[in-house]
């Protein structure tokens, strides 16, 4: 859902490319590293950033969805994983699956996977809160105009479809359709016409938008750009911190310190002081934008310097 609002905040003042690199590095780290302490730290850094872009209210709307997905991962992983030596409890013997045992290791592994997913999703959420879609369009239109236009229209389409879903559902209710009937077949029968209306209208609107865009000379030839994004001190700092975090992540992976052993039994969290040091350095680099963000908000001198 589109929830971006211009509030002149630090992350919103960064070059869209900088925010893209920062979010991209966090996503890469979450995918490349599986150390639970690192993932937890990255998640906390992201939450602080979300808070500093005043995105908590919007984030809370997504929270139930996140929780459901994480709980599902935690529950499903032990069903398929027979690894782990510390049995918490076992289900009765079943014909196909046999006896399923829930082990502490499998549950914690699932929890770690859920945390990883949270970091990835929250990094995307942060990007959406920090970058004005129009600025992103202006940036990417230079590289891939067609894709950028598609992305811009999709950004507009999603909230529009959500509103339309609501109004078509209301119309269908007033035509006698009951959406609260129990049973999958009843639900499909109720929602099928609704989705059909939305699809048909979206197709018609697509044609109308295409016509309007053509009438405003889109694709008619050489394009100019309304504003030039400038790279400023703050961009250099955040880009440096992002690249530092990336380098630390790559080094940790190369040294085998980015992961954590869950099976067959839980390993030690930190193998050497060097691992702690590198992980701390990575988290500090990842947290630098949040720190600058805080300074931007509460320290006018720093804001001026940045």
């Amino acid at each position, binding site marked *: 859902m589109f929830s971006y609002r211009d509030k002149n905040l630090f992350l919103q003042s960064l070059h869209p490319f900088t925010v893209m690199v920062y979010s991209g590095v966090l996503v890469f780290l979450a995918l490349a590293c599986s150390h639970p302490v690192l993932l937890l730290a990255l998640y906390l850094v992201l939450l602080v950033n979300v808070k500093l872009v005043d995105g908590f209210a919007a984030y809370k709307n997504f929270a139930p969805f996140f929780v459901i997905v994480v709980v599902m991962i935690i529950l499903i992983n032990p069903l398929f994983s027979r690894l782990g030596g510390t049995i918490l409890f076992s289900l009765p013997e079943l014909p196909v699956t046999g006896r399923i045992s829930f082990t502490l290791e499998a549950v914690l592994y699932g929890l770690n996977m859920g945390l990883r997913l949270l970091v990835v999703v929250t990094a995307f959420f942060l990007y959406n809160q920090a970058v004005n879609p129009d600025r992103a*369009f202006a940036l990417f239109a230079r590289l891939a105009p067609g894709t950028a236009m598609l992305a811009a229209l999709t950004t507009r389409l999603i909230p529009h479809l959500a509103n339309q879903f609501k109004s078509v559902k209301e119309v269908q209710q007033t035509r006698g359709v009951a959406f609260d009937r129990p049973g999958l077949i009843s639900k499909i029968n109720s929602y099928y016409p609704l989705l059909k209306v939305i699809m048909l209208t979206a197709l018609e609107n697509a044609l*109308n938008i295409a016509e*309007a865009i053509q009438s405003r000379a889109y694709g*008619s030839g050489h394009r100019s750009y*309304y504003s030039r994004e400038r790279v400023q001190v703050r961009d250099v700092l955040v880009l440096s911190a992002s690249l530092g975090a990336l380098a630390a992540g790559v080094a940790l992976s190369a040294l085998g310190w980015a992961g954590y052993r869950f099976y067959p039994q839980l390993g030690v969290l930190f193998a050497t002081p060097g691992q702690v040091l590198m992980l701390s350095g990575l988290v500090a680099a990842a947290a630098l934008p949040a720190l600058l963000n805080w300074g931007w908000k509460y320290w006018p001198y720093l804001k001026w310097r940045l």
Partner: protein
Amino acid sequence: MALFEVEALTYYYGGSERPALCGVNLEIDEGEFVLLVGGSGCGKSTLLRALSGLVPDFYGGVIGGRVRYRGKAGEIGFIFQDPENQLVMTGVEREIAFGLENTGVPGREMKRRIAEVMDYLNISALKSAHTFDLSGGQKQMVVLASVLAMQPRVLLLDEPTSQLDPVAAEELLTNVRRMNEDLGLTVVLVEQRLERCFHLADRVLVMQGGCLLKNSCPADAVLYGLDAESPFVPPLPRFFARAGSAGIPLTVAEGRKQIRALLPAAAIRGRSGGAGEREKTGKDAAPREKLLEIKNLSYTYPEAPKPAVRDVSFSVAPGEVAAVIGENGGGKSTLLKNICGLLRPQRGRVNLSGRDTGKQKVHELAKQVGYLAQNPNDYLFNDTVRREVAFGLKSAGGPADDSVDEILAGLRLTGVRDVNPRDLSGGERQRVALASVLVRKPRVLLLDEPTRGLDAQLKAEMGEYLMNLAADGVSIIIVTHDIEFVAEYARRVMIMFDGEIVADGDKRAVMNNSLYYAPQLNKVFRGYYEGVVTFQDALDTLKWCRYEVG
């Protein structure tokens, strides 16, 4: 030398065997303001698209004849009906810049043009706003700004006010007229609410069935329309032509001059109270049977700072036609949704035949309360019109019966009963949506902006159809901005402001002398005869006056 030359233009949309345009010949000079009128599907929009080049460039199809534009490419601006489908960016400033970027205007020049156009249209305050947060009128104004920033020589507008409330529509048309006068822009406008724009035009083109029937000044177009019994003549000139006036006025000011010439001097000096005295106001009338009763209804949307509807009470008798008018965001649609059960009153109650509807589910209530939403497209998903209308019966668990065909006939949809509703014009879609509500034979009918997108002929037909329903005992509540429609067909009028009903009574009592919610004819007679609201009122008053005084 004309700016546009159209010669023997004939056009078929792809896959269609019927021409959308048929041998159109036309010339439009630079700086002219041309109004294009005609019924739904008569080819007005296609002609505009042909002038802009979108036909056949965008639509394909088969074209014959010639459209010649004596200017450069990119000088023609086009504004469509729905602002929602013209906005691309999320910010207003970037939206205005979009067209300039597409034509390669340098950055500094863009900034200057954007600043100028925002000042010119008085929308500078919206510079940092998001397009999502704008009202329909503001959105259309941003679209106008984005077209104007491209410095067009020609502005083509296809029913640009059809989605707007009267205030926003008036503002938009005023700005278009200003551009025509100040900047010398050539304007070609397609519009359904003719009373708003007939007087603005230098020339009127009347179309029917893809052909250009008349190409003349507005006064001649009025005379032609009256001879041909065309509905595309605004009430004001129609009245004066019918009254045998020597000149045909197009504005209220001209009309007031004419009325002084038509009325006997004694009548002007001495008369007050006329048609308005002929009917009692609703509040004075004897107690009536109450089919629908609203008691102290209040509703506040979640996270809204104040109620959308506040302490509203009224009742509606069987067969009564009541209109709810008022500002955008005044709570009119919220009121209707509370009545049909889509929203539940947080205070107060809605009684239907004396029973509280609070515990009835929406789909159960739908058997007695029909609700027509603003957008007819939200109804249409079946393969044929007949199936679409029968869907209401099917969802109630019954088979399609003869009532479907009766309703189709009543709304003049029999000819398209086997056509996919998505292939119909806007006006036809609106009637299909209405038919799919009426098929359940509701006792109370709630209509939210039912005349939006309808031409004058269809509007008159819908009005007559609603009158017949009311005669059969159906209570009708219409939420609309269409003052002329309310004046003709409603019996009772309620004005909503800031969630409250601030006026409620007989239409003559409420609309008479209203600064804003009065029809044109009432404004013409204001001060001479009170209570003239409908076309018939005006004719009766003139007749009475000539007989009594003259």
